[in-house]
């Protein structure tokens, strides 16, 4: 079940593929290679936040002793999501600079990502303000569920409704992808590699949380 350890092989493969194997894109040239990092990173952020929301729903439905561990898991995945959102913002800005000459363009998509960032930063403020409160888990979970529901609005809908400089995303109007074969393969492999990376980091963070909880329990038992 240690499939996530595959990332040790997959990631170097992706690095090789993204830089040397895949061809340069038509107009942008070599700068287009950033797509193999920007898209997967954004994708992982979305996945992380959905996992946070789902975990929170479970916390609310099943209110049992496992809730504490689940809250830790929701916290961990939100933290990963936050880091990857920042990475998506940065890689997006780099790409923007390479394509249109400036890092920040008041583009709806760039603004949406910033709003997403703020929404999840607010989660951490909420969490620390609720420290010691017995309703902390429930209230944080409600917030994460609300954020998960609102997130698609920002990631998928706003950029489509408002004209954007951002190039067509994977799920675009044609339902087709305008990429060459080799680029498609590289992109999907990269998304797979980053997903494995997410699972790996999440797994480690959760194990650390589990150990922390166990230590706390043993101390109480003494």
């Amino acid at each position, binding site marked *: 079940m240690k499939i996530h350890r595959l990332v*040790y092989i997959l*990631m*170097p493969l992706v*690095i090789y593929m993204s*830089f*040397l194997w895949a061809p340069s894109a038509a107009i942008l040239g*070599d700068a287009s*290679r950033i797509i193999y*990092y920007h898209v997967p990173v954004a994708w992982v952020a979305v996945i992380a936040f959905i996992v946070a929301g789902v975990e929170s729903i479970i916390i609310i439905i099943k209110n049992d002793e496992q809730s504490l561990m689940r809250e830790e898991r929701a916290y961990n995945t939100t933290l990963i999501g936050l880091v990857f959102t920042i990475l998506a913002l940065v890689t997006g800005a780099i790409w923007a600079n390479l394509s249109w000459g400036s890092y920040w363009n008041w583009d709806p998509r760039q603004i949406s990502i910033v709003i997403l960032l703020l929404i999840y930063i607010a989660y951490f403020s909420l969490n620390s303000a609720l420290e010691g409160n017995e309703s902390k888990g429930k209230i944080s979970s409600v917030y994460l569920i609300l954020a998960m529901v609102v997130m698609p609005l920002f990631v998928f809908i706003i950029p489509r409704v408002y004209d954007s400089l951002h190039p067509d995303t994977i799920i675009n109007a044609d339902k087709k992808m305008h990429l060459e074969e080799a680029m498609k393969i590289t992109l999907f492999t990269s998304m797979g590699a980053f997903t494995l990376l997410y699972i*790996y*980091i999440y797994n*480690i963070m959760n*194990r*650390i949380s*589990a*150990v922390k909880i*166990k*230590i706390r329990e*043993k101390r109480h038992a003494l």
Partner: protein
Amino acid sequence: MPSEVMTVVLVIWIGIALLLYRLDRKVSKIEGEIDEL
């Protein structure tokens, strides 16, 4: 140009990979010890 960026990315990845590997090993060790306590 690609090769410099690629080297940087490779170095970053090796750093991350080493970190993850060390963490993995350490957490496994602690998990083993804590069950004995």
